[in-house]
């Protein structure tokens, strides 16, 4: 077992990495919220989802976190009557991505908060380190 403080930094770092991957997926979803297919009746962008799993680190014995898989949302597409759109089918309906902007925003908030919490842990661990080093200083 290595130094628990070092392990804390590693764990919080893995948390930062996982949450930033989640933020990346959210931004992809938001950017493609209106991306229709290029051909008539083609499927538009499908919302991506991200899942985490806890991973035991062999070196430190700590529970790190990592992105388990990036999947796709199988829910049905929204359809909209827009005969002028190049992606409209023969009845004039256009399939729009199954991205719910509100849901993405709340997902983004949650990722943001978790990122902040991990940052807080890193900051605090650094404080513990500096308190320990402070013992060596002449007062």
């Amino acid at each position, binding site marked *: 077992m290595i130094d628990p403080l070092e392990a*804390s930094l590693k764990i919080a770092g893995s948390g930062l990495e996982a949450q930033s991957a989640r933020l990346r997926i959210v931004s992809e979803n938001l950017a493609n919220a209106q991306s229709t297919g290029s051909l008539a009746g083609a499927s538009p962008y499908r919302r991506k989802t991200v*899942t985490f799993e806890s991973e035991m680190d062999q070196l430190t014995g700590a529970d790190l976190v990592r992105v388990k898989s990036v999947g796709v949302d199988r829910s049905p597409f929204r359809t909209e009557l827009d005969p002028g759109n190049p992606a409209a089918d023969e009845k004039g309906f256009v399939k729009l991505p199954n991205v719910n902007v509100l849901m993405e925003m709340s997902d983004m908030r949650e990722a943001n908060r*978790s990122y902040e*919490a*991990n940052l807080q*842990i890193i900051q605090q661990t650094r404080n*513990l380190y500096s308190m320990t080093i402070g013992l060596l200083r002449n007062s």
Partner: protein
Amino acid sequence: MTAGVCLILLVVVGGLTLFRQGSRSRSQSGGNWISLIFRLSHAPKLSASHKILVLDKFSRPDPVLDFVMQQVYLFDLASQQARWLTMRQASVAENISNANTPGFKAGDVAPFNEIFDGTALQMAATDRNHLGAGSSDAAGAPIANGTPWEVSYSGNSVSIEQEMIKSGEVYRAYSMNTSIVKAFNDMMMASLKG
């Protein structure tokens, strides 16, 4: 000649007392060891009254000195608590980083006093049929949080607020720990430098 021996004795006794008070990192037996050597090497040359003086100085337990010497354990205790606190910080970091992992159960380390309560001698098993007392590795084993504040639909029982409070507790306790060690170190330095 007697006056010369008496002077040397006083100087040596004074030096040893200072040494004992100054180097508090030695255990009680270290002091007795020094006094034993002193008595063995000097006792035959001394007169009866000086022997009594020496024995009085070293063999009878001095309550004040004993109290001071017992404080030596403070360093050991503080170091153990610091280790426990860093492990708790690691456990908090685990919980926080897994705050969005489905099915993750928040963990914590066993309370500090439980480590001492559970410290006991292990029985040696010399035969396969002996009943084992079980390993008491309570220090590093994460135990489940008693009452998680919230359990999400995905089965995750990490509450970031709870973890932040725990992290604050660790910070406060660690800060107190280092302050105490620093104060004790200052006391040692004061006794060394005078």
